[in-house]
């Protein structure tokens, strides 16, 4: 293979570079070496990408999907305590991006992962929901339905879902604004949007997991969510976890 010798050589050089780090005294010279290394890596990455320079004239769909990266940050500590595990999940009925009414009770007999996120288009939310989209096959193996809720309108949801390729329902907690989030104790009154929160609701409508991110910018750990789903699976089937997750 063409890449093998280069790869092996680069690996060896990187290994040597890494081993030198603790041997060099802190200071501007060390910093300069580190910066130079960073420059070399970025140049190499740019050359390897091989594409033309990005156009500055026309905004593409991909540019719009990435707008969240240059958007103002969303910061703030959690202000809410979620409903406790064991409580009955309050029913909610909200419009999806197609204007259809969707109720939690429509999914009775099914595991539901209820996602409250602050706002469409915002930092963290964009990556969080794309992550769940990529994991949709895995959630389906657990028989879990994803429902995502924010205070945005159905039109914002529709545009955002189209740009990011989201296929699970985005529900509009728009009017009365934040009513669903209030029922789940995750509304942030002063901000006008919800906490970043997760609920796992079992087939009987009981809350089996509730979580509010300690910071708005923090996305819940998906490995933790899988541990929860594995635990529920084990409780139902006596099996340790879904076999062979990918």
């Amino acid at each position: 293979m063409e890449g093998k010798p280069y790869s092996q050589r680069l690996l060896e050089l990187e290994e040597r570079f890494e081993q030198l780090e603790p041997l060099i005294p802190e200071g501007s010279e060390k910093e300069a070496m580190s910066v130079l290394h960073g420059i070399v890596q970025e140049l190499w990455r740019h050359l390897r990408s091989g594409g033309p320079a990005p156009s500055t004239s026309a905004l593409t769909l991909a540019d719009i999907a990435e707008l969240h990266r240059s958007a103002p940050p969303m910061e703030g500590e959690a202000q809410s305590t979620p409903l406790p595990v064991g409580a009955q999940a309050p029913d909610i009925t909200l419009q999806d991006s197609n204007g259809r009414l969707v109720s939690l009770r429509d999914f009775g007999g099914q595991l539901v992962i209820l996602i409250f996120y602050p706002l469409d288009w915002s930092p963290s939310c964009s990556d969080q929901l794309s992550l769940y989209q990529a994991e949709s096959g895995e959630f389906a193996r657990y028989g879990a339905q994803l429902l995502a809720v924010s205070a945005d309108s159905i039109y914002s949801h529709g545009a955002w879902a189209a740009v990011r390729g989201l296929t699970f329902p985005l529900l509009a907690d728009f009017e009365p604004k934040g009513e669903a989030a209030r029922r789940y104790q995750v509304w942030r009154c002063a901000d006008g949007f919800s906490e970043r929160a997760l609920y796992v609701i079992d087939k009987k409508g009981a809350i089996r997991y509730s979580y509010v991110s300690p910071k708005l910018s923090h996305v819940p750990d998906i490995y933790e969510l899988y541990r929860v789903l594995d635990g529920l699976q084990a409780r139902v089937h006596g099996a340790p976890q879904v076999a062979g997750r990918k």
Partner: protein
Amino acid sequence: MKAISIHRAGRCATHGERAAPTIAPIVVYGTSWCAATQAIRRHLDRREVPYHHFDIEKNPAAAARLRWMTGGSLRHPTVSVAGEVLVEPSLQEVDWALSRASLT
């Protein structure tokens, strides 16, 4: 590559508590709350590509190493693939690097 058996599909074995290793073919530096880090780790899981993972908030040595390799940046995720250091790469960039290094 088979000898580097840290993370496998569906498992979460280290959470960055390991001592700093010598460089591995694939290392993911990130945090447990970063969606992009999670996306890359799950991508590697799905492809059954073994990798080391370091939580830079829990592992100061890994954070220092990351800073050293990137010219002072602690941006995450950063993925090192056979010596190529990719700061906040797309999944496609990771796949390209894996392919160049014949790791898939």
